[in-house]
């Protein structure tokens, strides 16, 4: 029996048992390498170049000149970002708008997620479906729809004036308020879903135990539910905050000319000024701005989840 040579399938199975682990873990790494690290390095490279009227519109980092490698690293783009107040205020403005939107999204999303998590089976599925449903329409079309709602002659003004509540139309579109509305509307599901998944997992007997020990309902929420849903709050907030900082479409379509956000600045550098190196350095700076605090958060979260380690 034991002399029989292993069949091809058996050999494959043995190989999989030995190396399958590497394969399974390797695949996402390969994905991240190809679609995150490589593009990032390309952008990083361009950010150290000089703008040129050429194809591509930037200078090469490494050049073969006179039998030697000529490395030309241009830090000018980054120095320019620091020296021009436009970029700094665009960054700060983006972070401010993203932060305020995140807080509003959290305040609206938390009760919704809580309600869904507490709902009974079929109702819960329906509510979750409704949260996800907007994704079935293009994001761009949904933002366009908001133009129709918020415009001077839009639905809100028409309704309010028709009911004689106001005599002059409200100016909502092309203000920062419209940008908040747009961001909160668009990113609400990203807040609700992680919150829902932490709240849904929470053991209902914990709240009962708190009540049983003499804790009033609102205090039980504050001392038990809220701290235990912190991972969800953090995850949801990051999922809203990060894309909101770099948001381009919403400020472009709903915001006014004064709504300065880094996404719009980036777009202008790329497509209007055709200054790829500056645009790249804007992107890299934004990434560093965002990645550092996120990594810090992750570190903290890892600590709170495994205090034993």
């Amino acid at each position: 029996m034991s002399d029989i040579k292993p069949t091809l399938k058996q050999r494959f199975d043995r190989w999989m048992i030995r190396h399958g682990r590497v394969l399974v873990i390797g695949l996402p790494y390969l994905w991240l390498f190809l679609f995150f690290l490589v593009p990032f390095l390309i952008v990083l490279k361009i950010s150290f170049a000089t703008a040129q009227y050429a194809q591509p519109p930037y200078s090469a980092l490494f050049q073969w000149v006179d039998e030697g490698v000529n490395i030309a690293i241009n830090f000018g783009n980054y120095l320019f970002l620091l020296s021009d107040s436009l970029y700094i205020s665009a960054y700060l403005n983006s972070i401010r708008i993203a932060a305020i939107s995140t807080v509003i999204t959290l305040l609206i999303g938390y009760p919704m997620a809580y309600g869904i998590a507490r709902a009974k089976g079929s109702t819960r599925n329906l509510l979750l479906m409704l949260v996800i449903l907007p994704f079935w329409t293009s994001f761009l079309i949904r933002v366009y729809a908001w133009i129709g709602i918020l415009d001077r002659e839009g639905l809100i003004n028409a309704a309010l004036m028709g009911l004689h509540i106001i005599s002059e139309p409200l100016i909502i579109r092309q203000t920062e308020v419209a940008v908040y509305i747009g961001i909160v509307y668009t990113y609400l599901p990203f807040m609700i879903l992680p919150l829902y998944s932490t709240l849904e997992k929470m053991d209902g007997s914990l709240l009962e135990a708190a009540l049983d020990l003499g804790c009033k309902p609102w205090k039980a929420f504050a001392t038990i539910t809220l701290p235990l849903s912190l991972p969800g709050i953090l995850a949801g907030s990051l999922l809203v905050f990060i894309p909101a900082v770099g948001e381009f479409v919403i400020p472009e379509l709903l915001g006014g000319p004064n709504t300065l956000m880094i996404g719009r600045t980036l777009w202008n550098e790329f497509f209007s000024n055709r200054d790829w190196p500056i645009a790249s350095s804007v992107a890299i700076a934004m990434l560093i701005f965002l990645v550092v605090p996120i990594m810090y958060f992750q570190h903290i979260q890892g600590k709170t989840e495994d205090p034993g380690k």
Partner: protein
Amino acid sequence: MSQGANQQDAQICVQTSQPWNDPDGVPFIRFEKVTKKFGDFYAVDDVSLDIYRHELFALLGGSGCGKTTLLRMLAGFEDPTEGKIYIDGVDMANVPPYERPTNMMFQSYALFPHMSVEKNVAFGLHQDGYSKSEIKERVADMLALVQMSKFATRKPHQLSGGQRQRVALARSLVKQPKVLLLDEPLGALDKKLREQTQFELVNIQEKLGTTFVMVTHDQEEAMTMASRIAVMNEGVIKQIGTPFELYEYPNSRFTANFLGQVNLIEGTLVDDDEKYAIIQSDDIGGEIYIDHAVQGHEGTTLWVALRPERLRLCTEKPENTTRNCFAGKVEDIGYLGGLSTYHVRLETGKRIRVSEPNTHRHNEPRYTWDDQVWVTWETGSASVLNQ
């Protein structure tokens, strides 16, 4: 004279340790015709129940029998659809859980995962606004009582199941509730630890004198721990009594079956006297002689309940008596160490379970498969059930 005094003493003793037998006893917890419906389903159906101070009362039944619902109504997590619940004379109808004089130990323990052992135990005291020094003292005392002082700063996920159980117990006792509610308190522990903890719980209960109401599906646990047990089925209490009463004097086939092993033999009452009764049973193929009077008139269908350990096996037909003696064949043997159980197939086809203690080492088993044996019992061993 002295005999009379002794009798009186005994009477007093009964009165103090068995308040349920005292006609003047005031119940501490009272369920009055309580019904709880979930939709169309009757989880608890018209239950009236009195529990007295210092009792360790067990609600015993299979899953879905309504025992947990009854406990949760006591804690205030469910409101009765109909009926009233009194604790210490106060109607609990509009009292929210956080104002009830009860504390509960949850089946899952429900320890707050983000708080240390100490903080978990202190949680209830914080709600009542005790001073910091008092909270510290009482928490320390409580942790000492459950032998968890060493683990005060640990988080629940760093504890074993048995340790969590102790913390949960400490947390529910620290507020000195009038009533402690225990929902399957030992369900999550392994058998060895469970047996050990049963006695510890009883000791703590005796030490503190708190009234315990416990829910369990484990009849052994209920019998070891409880002063009285209510056996429940389908939302109804089938019987209430001390473990002894329930085991020796079950009132129905359900209770007899639920507590311990039993052989149930169906028969018809043919002769009923003041001192004895005779039941004709086709089930077992003969007459069963009972040494006491039986409720019911001649012709009623009755069931005779016989505990396996009250039956005896003999290889030859006993000579001195012809009563309650039936021939059969050993069909199965289960060796359990301390005792052996034999399944005997009677000539009518009825299977009877007999257990015998193994009191000596080295002894060969007395019977083996296919041995011809006689099953017999003393006339006082059987209880007669009419439902």
